[in-house]
């Protein structure tokens, strides 16, 4: 019962794969609705699943944190399928060569979602590592999905190499920890950590930090992001920017809070330095970007910098703040990407200056994109502001006032470059002869719902309150 959402998603992957065999090319349009149905059923199962408990002798655990992460993963997957289906079903006005194999595409997408769901529920390091690989290896394939496009293949190859390097670091770190403690279970490892000889422990911690840094695109481990984001098909970029980041955070939670829990307090200067460098570099480089996907890559890097501010404070403030910000971030980012994917589908344009005049041809889409961009920039009363406010206040409470200043300056810079897009959409003159671009109802509904959620989550305190209350019980069980 606890594993029901995962089982449903895996079964959907199997159904999609087998269904693909028996369908003609034209009738394969039903694969996307089947995938969506599976994800929706998984979500429904998640709603009725108890929020605490474990399975398989404690090897698979469920807690409120895992529950919220699974919500995040399922939403990200659901929206990605909606964004992908126009392109894959050939409904895009501007067609891309080499995109096909719908059944395989959805199967692979579903399996990364399952990998991420297992990742946050894993209670021992082997499951943790295997599910991390299940979450990331399919992403390499998805990145290279535009098969006759050189950039896409290059991006896939870069991602494979960097991803393998990061996995090697993580595996090395976990093996050292296993060698030192003789335990594969996370609880057992964490319990024995105090007696572990320090130099070897530091090596393991450094390895894990490096690996996590690659996954979460923390500077200086960020260099793969821009090329991979640019080369991947736009819906895959959307998925990468939200789901792989959420998976990185989930892995970081598992490692930092469950394994290193007691040690974390001593590491805050290092985390603060990483946060400062990450947000500054991401923001400064984003200013000069021209391609919108590259631009979003650097924007995502700087957002990762804000995100890890939550590790600076005590866990009972940090965990809910980071979870809430992650939720806000994926909703905002997906709304932006929904517009990017739609615009690229309709016109084939992916440069920032090519967004000019969008407010005149498609005012609703431009409005949705603007709300989401403002949320990413952190403008009140949108939810991005609220999320940032919680994170900054944690850093301030922990005594990192300089870091809060850096973060505030960075927010201002980010407002400048997010406004560049808004300026193109609202102020720059329209293309000659540009007419209203058709918007499919699925895309319109997605953008509408996402931007509504982005706007409301900042005003209605219910979400943050719920996350906060639930994580408190989680922490009580972890410490007690």
């Amino acid at each position, binding site marked *: 019962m606890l594993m029901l959402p995962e089982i449903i998603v895996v079964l959907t992957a199997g159904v999609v794969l087998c269904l693909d065999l028996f369908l003609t*090319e034209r009738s394969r349009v039903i694969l996307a609705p089947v995938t969506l149905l599976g994800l929706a059923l998984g979500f429904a199962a998640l709603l009725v699943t108890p929020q605490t408990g474990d399975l398989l*002798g404690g090897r698979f655990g469920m807690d409120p944190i895992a529950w919220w992460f699974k919500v995040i993963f399922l939403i990200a997957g659901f929206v990605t399928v909606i964004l992908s289906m126009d392109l894959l079903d050939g409904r895009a006005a501007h067609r891309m060569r080499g995109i096909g194999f719908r059944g395989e595409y959805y199967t*692979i997408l579903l399996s990364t979602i399952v990998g991420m769901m297992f990742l946050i529920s894993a209670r021992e390091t082997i499951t943790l590592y295997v599910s991390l690989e299940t979450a990331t290896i399919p992403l390499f394939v998805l990145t290279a999905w535009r098969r006759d496009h050189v950039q896409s293949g290059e991006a896939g190859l870069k991602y494979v190499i960097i991803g393998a390097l990061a996995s090697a670091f993580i595996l090395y770190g976990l093996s050292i920890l296993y060698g030192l403690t003789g335990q594969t279970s996370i609880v057992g490892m964490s319990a024995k950590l105090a007696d572990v000889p320090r130099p070897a422990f530091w090596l393991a911690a450094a390895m894990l930090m490096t690996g996590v840094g690659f996954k979460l695109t923390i500077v200086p481990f960020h260099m793969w992001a821009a090329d991979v984001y640019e080369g991947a098909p736009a819906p895959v970029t959307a998925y990468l920017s939200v789901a792989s980041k959420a998976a990185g955070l989930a892995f970081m939670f598992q490692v930092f809070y469950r394994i290193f829990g007691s040690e974390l307090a001593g590491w805050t200067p290092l985390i603060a330095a990483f946060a400062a460098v990450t947000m500054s570099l991401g923001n400064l480089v984003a200013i000069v970007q021209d391609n919108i996907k590259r631009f979003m890559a650097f924007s995502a890097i700087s957002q990762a910098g804000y995100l890890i501010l939550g590790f600076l404070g005590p866990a009972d403030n940090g965990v809910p703040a980071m979870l809430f910000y992650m939720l806000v971030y994926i909703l905002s980012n997906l709304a932006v990407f929904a517009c990017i994917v739609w615009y690229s589908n309709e016109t084939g344009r992916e440069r920032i200056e090519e967004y000019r005049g969008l407010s005149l041809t498609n005012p609703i889409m431009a409005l949705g994109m603007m709300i989401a961009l403002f949320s990413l920039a952190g403008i009140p009363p949108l939810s991005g502001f609220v999320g940032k406010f919680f994170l900054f206040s944690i850093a301030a409470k922990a005594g990192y006032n300089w870091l809060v200043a850096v973060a505030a300056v960075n927010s201002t810079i980010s407002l400048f470059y997010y406004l560049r897009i808004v300026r193109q959409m609202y102020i720059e003159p329209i293309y000659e002869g540009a007419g209203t671009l058709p918007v499919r109802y699925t895309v319109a509904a997605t953008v509408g719902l996402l931007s509504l959620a982005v706007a409301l989550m900042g005003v209605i305190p219910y979400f943050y309150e719920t996350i906060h209350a639930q994580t408190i019980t989680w922490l009580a069980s972890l410490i007690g």
Partner: protein
Amino acid sequence: MIASASYTVIFYLLAALAVLLSLAVVNAWKLLRAAIALMGVLSMSAGLYVMLDASFLAGVQVLVYVGGIVVLIVFAVMLTRSAELLQDNPAPLRKILGAIASLAFLAATVGVFRSSPFLLSAEKAPLRDNTTLIGEKLLDYGAGGYVLPFEIISLLLLIAIIGGIVVARKTEPQGQPFTTGGDEAGEAEFRPPFTQEEHEDELELVEK
């Protein structure tokens, strides 16, 4: 006495060979030679596993790495005709930086491992029948079992195979009317080659 001495001798022999062969992997100018040297390195580590009584691991090492991965590399080298393409000559600064980084990493690792006692020593590990034990652990769904990662890995392998096929597949599947760039008229005439031979014939024609 003699047994332990020969054990030590064999260990150092295997270790020295592994190091030498690794150097050969990195320094070989031809990809194929590097692959063969890699095969040697992996076999040497299989030998080390045997000496540690980890017979299952040694078997897997030979089957998967020596028999599978290196053969795959050799295939890739032969099929892509890129065996001679290794003429990359990095700038001296890069070489120096690379050397410094790897030496620093070596020093840190050796230093750490010398100064830290590891809990798992050979005496504690079960010496006999570890293949049976591993098999039981992998399918055990109780507190000490690993059935969950075992199942997740099967999903991972399936997805990796599917993904590999999709990425590597050369021809569009027949009748994908929506996805070949919108050129409907051309799509009607577009017929992917059915067999490898036909495909090669076509390639030859193109080359002529």
